[in-house]
């Protein structure tokens, strides 16, 4: 079950990599694979049991898979220190601004949609 779903995921990743090499070199193969799988699911209109099992198990361990790339930060420690204030400032201020902006915008849009329904 798990193995079958995993095979599907790997196949889509390989397909994406081929497509990336052939047509779209600026997009990573994994992203193209994700889009291909998404289109495939829309056409099939359901997520098969093996695929759902494999996707859930992989996504559960996603944080573990991200540890090795995160450790790579040790190579760039000096570059981060040099720009530390710019980075922290940009991250904190932009986070707060966009978080509040998105929440406010979405709430306004929902209210407007409900208002229109009410009027009709």
């Amino acid at each position: 079950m798990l193995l079958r779903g995993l095979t599907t995921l790997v196949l889509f990743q390989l397909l994406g990599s081929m497509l990336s090499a052939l047509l779209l070199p600026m997009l990573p193969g994994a992203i193209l694979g994700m889009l291909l799988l998404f289109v495939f699911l829309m056409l099939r209109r359901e997520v098969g049991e093996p695929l759902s099992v494999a996707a859930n198990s992989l996504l559960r361990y996603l944080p573990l898979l991200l540890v090795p790339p995160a450790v790579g930060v040790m190579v760039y420690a000096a570059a981060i220190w040099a720009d530390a204030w710019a980075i922290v400032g940009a991250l904190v201020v932009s986070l707060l601004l966009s978080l509040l902006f998105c929440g406010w915008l979405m709430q306004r849009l929902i209210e407007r949609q409900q208002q229109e329904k009410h009027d009709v």
Partner: protein
Amino acid sequence: MFDGQAALRALIDHPLFCFALTLAAYQLALALYERTRWVVMQPVLLAMLMVIPVLLLCDIDFARYRDGTQLLSLFLGPATVALAVPLYLNLRRIRQLFWPVVLTLAIGGLFATLAGVGLAWWFGADEMVLMTLLPKSVTSPIAMLVAEQIGGVAALAAVFVLITGVLGAIFGPPLLSWIGVRHPAARGMALGITAHAVGTAQALQESEETGAFSALAMSVLGAATAILLPLAVLFLR
């Protein structure tokens, strides 16, 4: 008789040492996070902070560590492909609130991306850092892939994503309540767009609807960033 030094060397030089170290550090980090349930104790961040000192102590450089953990990194691709499944499952929820969702994603996503880079540029960060900051609002596998594509640093992108996520999860909910955003869909979208996976985990604790919209915002914005950002950078150069 017993050569402790040789035994230690055999342990450190073994091809599985880095793999074992990563597994152990992650499980320890996860246990700590589950025990405390404290949002700052992100497992990836904690595991990273445990692994790096050990590597420095054992005199292992990053190239060797990367080789040793290839078993894990290889699965990052299929895991990215697997994101299509939750995205598809959430598709039905968009239909009811179609325009609010699409408009907020487009305007809010653009705003979140540009605000970070604009501020960093204004504060005087160099191009490598700017290119790494661009994808900071999306979930780490996508941010890392995209950063690498446009000339940033994948590992650094992961750290930016993590910092953004943790801060968003801590300060997001109280601030949203403070400015009067109460609709679960709106709270979810705001958390998903700005604080991705960590924000989504936090949103799920508020309610299922908040979590679903957060996951939706995260995955759609992630896919859109992966496609549009490399193209935009390509045209602007």
